């Protein structure tokens, strides 16, 4: 039993952004001033973004209390309550994990340490069986590890879902003195933060996974390609690599096994396309991050012309767990074709957003409604975007889809790396498609025609539609051009860029048609299509007609005013100035 109360503050980028540093400061101050017997600790992401900043208090007897949405003042009150009054504090208390279905529906494999241990302390990782998988792995031949991974049905978590064991076996089979292992930490989807949180919360899990993978394929040099916009992740990785080296987990003759392997961090400049394997390798080599045609495949001729294996952060972080617990246990978590869990960054118009880890096969409905508690503000659900800009938007009718590689692809979306953006009734689906396409268009490396020009031309059509200048033929043009871009683009970025447009066209064509034929945006988002109307609530105060810059509002004092739609420039002034909220957008 511990002597002190242990207090963990969620100290990942998300927590810090919400004010964790202030909370941690207040905590330290309180402890010092009052001489409390409390051990404060910074941990990684707890997963409850919607409750940040967070603090978890563990009493010497093991009981835990989690507080969320904290403000600095709360800290002393919580401490006073627990220490002096031996009771919990008010409404900032989050129900215990066992009876809070935000957690009950989740299964923590990859995130098992995240938010629990101090990521900057290797000892804490070791305490929780850290690096025991490595010890085990080093005792057997690489081919056995590969078989284990194959058996586990672990598939690439970067998005494409290629069986990891098979991928490793290609790299292993390549004959070369020099082989590389690359961890792709170039997380670029808008709204996605799985890899960042994972690294910030449990960097050693990744390192351990990498070392095991390197042993399996016979690589002696590893790179972690991580974007420079993740300073905290980079810092924690650097610390972890240093610790692993001094403990003998990295470097020459690891744990006396004769196997040598070291890891270097390569910082990316944040180009989305560098998440593509060949572009990523070009970037590490110091070239412009542009994809190259395959073949040659990285497993034959990759980084610096040598056989190279590239895996995503989450994929590698799964590896130690599988080695420790066995393939069967892992496989049992997931579905028939795909073992284990998947981490999602649940974001958008969701009541309880955050980092969630669920068994593969969990339905979208469970994630969005049971874990996420539905749409914020009690609004109606409209769609969920999976897989970021490469993925697709699924409507309510698809909510029973289990999250698995094949089922999601059939529905028109993709598993992707785990971005899950939830949209409600106030979201315009044409605007959403435009947003994602605008992103991919700007992030195109510019190399191949279909991606560089094709996505631009699609985007221009969408812009026409949201500007109210679309025509029915534009939908045909989109439907005709999109598959050409998918078929003929050089890399995954272009091949998937039309997805958001295609799925929204598939499930929300009526919304497009509303824009085109009725010049209206049902969600009230597209500025050019909004109409301002004065309701019966008008008291005839004349303020709006006085303020209207184009004199488009007429009406007698004391009677209901009317907006001349021909004259209206949709500046919104009337809505702003109306004292009785009698102006609405239609």
């Amino acid at each position, binding site marked *: 039993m511990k002597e002190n109360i242990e207090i963990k503050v969620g100290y990942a980028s998300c927590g810090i952004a919400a004010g964790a540093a202030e909370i941690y400061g207040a905590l330290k101050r309180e402890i010092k001033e009052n001489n409390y017997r409390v051990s404060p600790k910074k941990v990684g992401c707890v997963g409850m973004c919607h409750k940040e900043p967070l603090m978890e208090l563990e009493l010497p007897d093991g009981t835990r209390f989690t507080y969320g949405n904290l403000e600095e003042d709360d800290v002393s009150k919580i401490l006073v309550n627990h220490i002096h009054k031996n009771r919990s504090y008010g409404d900032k208390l989050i129900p215990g994990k066992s009876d809070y279905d935000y957690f009950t529906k989740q299964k923590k494999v990859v995130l098992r340490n995240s938010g629990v241990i101090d990521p900057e302390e290797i000892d804490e990782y070791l305490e929780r069986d850290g690096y025991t998988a490595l010890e085990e792995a080093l005792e057997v031949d690489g081919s056995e590890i590969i078989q284990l991974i194959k058996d586990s049905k672990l598939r690439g978590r970067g998005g494409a879902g290629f069986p990891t064991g098979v991928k490793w076996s290609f790299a292993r089979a390549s004959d070369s003195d020099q082989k590389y292992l690359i961890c792709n930490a170039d997380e670029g989807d808008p709204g996605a933060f799985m890899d960042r949180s994972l690294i910030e919360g449990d960097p050693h899990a990744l390192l351990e996974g990498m070392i095991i993978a390197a042993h399996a394929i016979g690589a002696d040099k590893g790179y972690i390609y991580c974007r420079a916009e993740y300073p905290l992740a980079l810092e924690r990785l650097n610390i972890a690599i240093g610790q692993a080296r001094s403990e003998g987990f990295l470097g020459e003759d690891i744990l006396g096994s004769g196997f040598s392997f070291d890891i270097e961090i390569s910082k990316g400049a944040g*180009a989305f*396309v560098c998440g593509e394997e060949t572009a990523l390798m070009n970037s590490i080599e110091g070239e*412009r991050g*542009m994809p*190259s*045609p*395959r*073949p*040659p495949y990285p497993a034959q001729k990759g980084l610096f012309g040598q056989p190279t294996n590239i895996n995503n952060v989450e994929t590698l972080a799964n590896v130690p767990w599988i080695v420790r617990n066995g393939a069967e246990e892992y496989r049992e978590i997931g579905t028939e074709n795909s073992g284990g869990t998947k981490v999602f960054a649940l974001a958008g118009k969701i009541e309880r957003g955050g980092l969630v880890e669920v068994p593969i096969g969990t339905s979208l409905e469970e994630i969005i409604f049971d874990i996420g508690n539905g749409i914020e503000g009690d609004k109606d659900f409209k769609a969920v975007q999976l897989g970021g800009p490469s993925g697709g938007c699924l409507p309510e009718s698809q909510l029973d889809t289990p999250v698995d590689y094949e089922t999601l692809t059939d529905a028109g979306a993709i598993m992707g790396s785990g971005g899950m953006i939830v949209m409600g009734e106030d979201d315009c689906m044409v605007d959403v498609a435009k947003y994602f396409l605008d992103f991919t*268009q*700007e*992030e*195109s*490396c*510019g*190399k*191949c*025609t*279909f991606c*560089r*020009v*094709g*996505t*631009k*031309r699609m985007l*221009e059509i969408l812009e026409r539609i949201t500007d109210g200048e679309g025509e029915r033929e534009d939908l045909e043009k989109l439907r005709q*051009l999109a598959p*050409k871009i998918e*078929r*003929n*683009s*050089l890399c995954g970025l272009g091949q998937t860029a039309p997805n958001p447009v295609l799925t929204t066209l598939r499930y929300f064509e009526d919304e497009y048609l509303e824009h085109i034929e009725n010049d209206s945006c049902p969600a009230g988002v597209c500025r050019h299509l909004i109409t301002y109307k004065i309701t019966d609530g008008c008291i005839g105060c004349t303020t709006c007609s006085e303020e209207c810059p184009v004199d488009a509002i007429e009406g007698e004092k004391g009677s209901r005013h009317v907006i001349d739609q021909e004259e209206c420039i949709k500046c919104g002034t009337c809505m702003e100035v109306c004292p009785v909220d009698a102006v609405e957008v239609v």
Partner: protein
Amino acid sequence: MSNKISLEINGKKCAVDAEKSILDACRDNDIFIPTLCEMEEIDLPYGGCRVCLVEVEGSEGKEITTSCDTPVEEGIKVKTETEEVIAERRAALELLLSEHTGDCVPPCTYECPASLDVQGYIAHIANGRPEAAVKLIKEKTPLAVSLGRACFAPCEDQCRRELAEEPMAIRQLKEYAAEKDLEDPWEPEIHGDTGKEVGIVGGGPAGLTAAYFLRLEGHSVTIYDQMSELGGMMRYGIPNYRLPNDLLAREIDWIMDRGVSAEMETKLGEDFTLEELRREKDSVLLATGAWESWIIPIPGHELEGVMGGTDFLVDHSSGKEMEIGDEVAVIGCGGCAMDTARVAKRLGADVTVVYRRTEEQAPAPEAEIEEAKEEGIEFKFLLSPEEITGEERVDGITCAKMELGEPDESGRAKPVKIEGETELISCDTVLMSIGESPEAELLETEGVELEDSTIKNYGKYRTNYEDVFAAGDTSIGPSSIAESTGQGREAAYAVNAYLNGEIDDYEPPEDFRTPFGYVHRDEKTTEDFADEEELPRVEMPRRDPEKRIKNFEPIEHGYSDEEAVAEAKRCLECGCLDRYECELREYSDRYDARQDYYEGERFEREIDDSHPRVERDPNKCILCGSCVRTSEEVHGEGELQFVNRGFSTKVAPPFEQPLGESESELIGDLADSCPTGALEEVLEGEKPGPFEPSKTIETRCLGCGLTCPATVEVNQGRPIRLVPAENGTYGGHLCDKGKFTSLAGWQDRINHIVFRNKNGWKKRGWDTVVRALEERKVDVVLGRATTMEEGKLLRKLARTTGGDITAISPREYRSTLGLEELRGAEALYVEDGVYKISPVFKAILKQALDGGATLTNDPDELPDPGGVGLFAPRSENPTERRIVASPEANGNGLTQLGLSESLGGGEVLLLWDQVACRELEADTYETIIWFGHMGEDLPNGVDGLVPIRSWLEKEGRIVNSLGETIELTPGLDSELRKNAELLRDLIDSLKSRTPATGRGM
């Protein structure tokens, strides 16, 4: 032996090496695949353009995929031109076109109804080659003079020079070149007789043009014309002062001299029937024109003194006695109305032109209205004749006053009557010049189907009879000479196809006229040309208006050579210089890619013209990466790189430094790697064209001792540029020195002997040369392209006179190794200065290094064998295994001749060929004579120039830096005698002259 894989391409079984791509497999089997980014030299495919798509059927089904990056697999079936494949390729091209901005052809050329290459012929004139200009014109029309004198010049309306100050005088430039050609006309090639006979009814512009082109195809052609002289409306409708009859007659004679016959005063329907002609001939072309004037049927139109304008002109031209009053009103304001008014004026009348629209809307060319005004003709606009008044004869016209209203179908604002307002014009003659029509009744009687009073078009210039074709006014209604001649040419090709039994598959030859981007004047504005130097139009001298109204003498005097060149130099060269090399254009044409299918944003980026010979137009870049890869992977220089992302991605030099500031000597090579006009080579001369190569010569670049295989493109007998030979060994590249200086001076080259006196250069005879050399000690300096044979003869010459012989840098060392050893080297040493002499060594070295060679800093460490040292001439310490780079093409060879290190005290200095030395020690010699192929722009001190055959005209051997003996092949004809003959003659003359018995010029 490498592993072979069998596959099927377009149904044909073939076996190829296992590691090949589908693209290579197709190429090996001579199957065409379009690609804009593939570079044979670089192994890894790029995969950028996505045009090389093919259908592949393999174990996993059928798919369309890029062929450059898809390896062959056993048993796959490849199809290269299925409908789907073509649709996908077209989509790729259309996307590329949607961001490709520029002018493929200039607006003038785009607008020309006769499809003349306006920019091309103007460039020839600017470069002092009117004969080449005429030839270019005559590829499209035999009526160069007529168009030069009387075309309505829509090209000038489009000319962008107007946005700088005034449009080019395009018509007059054509007039200048065409009339120069009349002196010694160009002779086109005529195909052998086909035995087929064509009858052409009508000898106007359409009929004459068709006759000419059908004759060139070898058919027998007879023209039947109702008038006594050929020329149609050119002869009878256009007055002498605009198109002089004698010039027209000479132009027509030239056409008839090709072997066209004519039967004059023979009218269809009167002297023969169409039925008869069809029986007699294999095919008939109707080009009967439009000779019936329209008369507006307003009250009074039947009064005496009312006449059709065309009738009036024809009567006048036929020499009929003309009765014309004192006051003439001409109704209408087209070209014909102007002619009518001006002829009436010349007959002594006061003339008023009445037009119901405004001056701006008038169809007559601005210049003609201006000239008519100068001649004292009055214009009344916005008046619509309502009634012609008079008893028997006309005494006036009542006109309704008009104002402009809404635009009509033609897009012009429609004139509408102002109620109740009229104006009376007093006149005794009314000439209605509002239009003409073909003789419809006559044609109908002959069984020809009509539609809207012209002959019904069944496509491809056909009529309702399969053997009868129609062109010109009779087919499309009243048209200009340019439109008619264009029709005549195209109809001739259609008739030819019919005669060859190919009419069903025949497609009229349509020029690739898609203008990319800013062709329309409303898109380019004066602001775009604000920085352009103002060069006012060189006005062609004309007779004074007072004098010209007194008679029908021609009013234009023509340009002098200087004036024509000055005017031609004003051309802004809007059209793409890579028009004839552009692969994007070639493929777009092939696959019918529509330029505006995917409309959207385009960039307008600044054009970089800082480099003297390469212009970089980023707006034409399709981001194929060829230049970037050439610069990085072949040159290792990094002259260009990619910048930005997404749609904004572009190619630019590092830090956007202008190309002209680059120190690289391989910029021209980047232009050669560009499949479009984004990097354009600017040709030597005042105007770079573009000129279509009419011939190519496979030869060697003699810019340095590396002698890279090169192709010389020739246009009309003149070499215009050097490009790397297609299957060039060596680097497969050319450096700027070789590429840009090898043809320098060709422009001004002179082909006769000149000597300098105090007034400048004077033409002299061979005797002068002999006299200048005899009894003197002649020292000789050999130039860079001196052959072994020439070197030996010159050595003999020097020794005969007791003089010395050297080269600009006589070699101390010769290469002991060749290309094979260099490519396969294990280790390499490169001495400073080698790249300066032969920049292409960079590319070859890169290949050796990519093949595993290492570079060393110490030549003594080179392994033997396996090591190769690359040395500059006069190296201190060359190793035995070496290649010596020589600045002279025959550097290695000349060393073998045993040349002197320096020259002794000769009295005469003889420079042979291209001596790369512009500063001569003139003081020590009495006389310096240069035997070379160049112009008169020679350094001070040179007293004489003797023209000799150039490297493209002479035979002989040279030994290059790699120790290879190369035979030169003369690819160009020369009027000059062979260099060896000249030298032998000179040696003999010098030997035979007995010592001094008095000299004198």
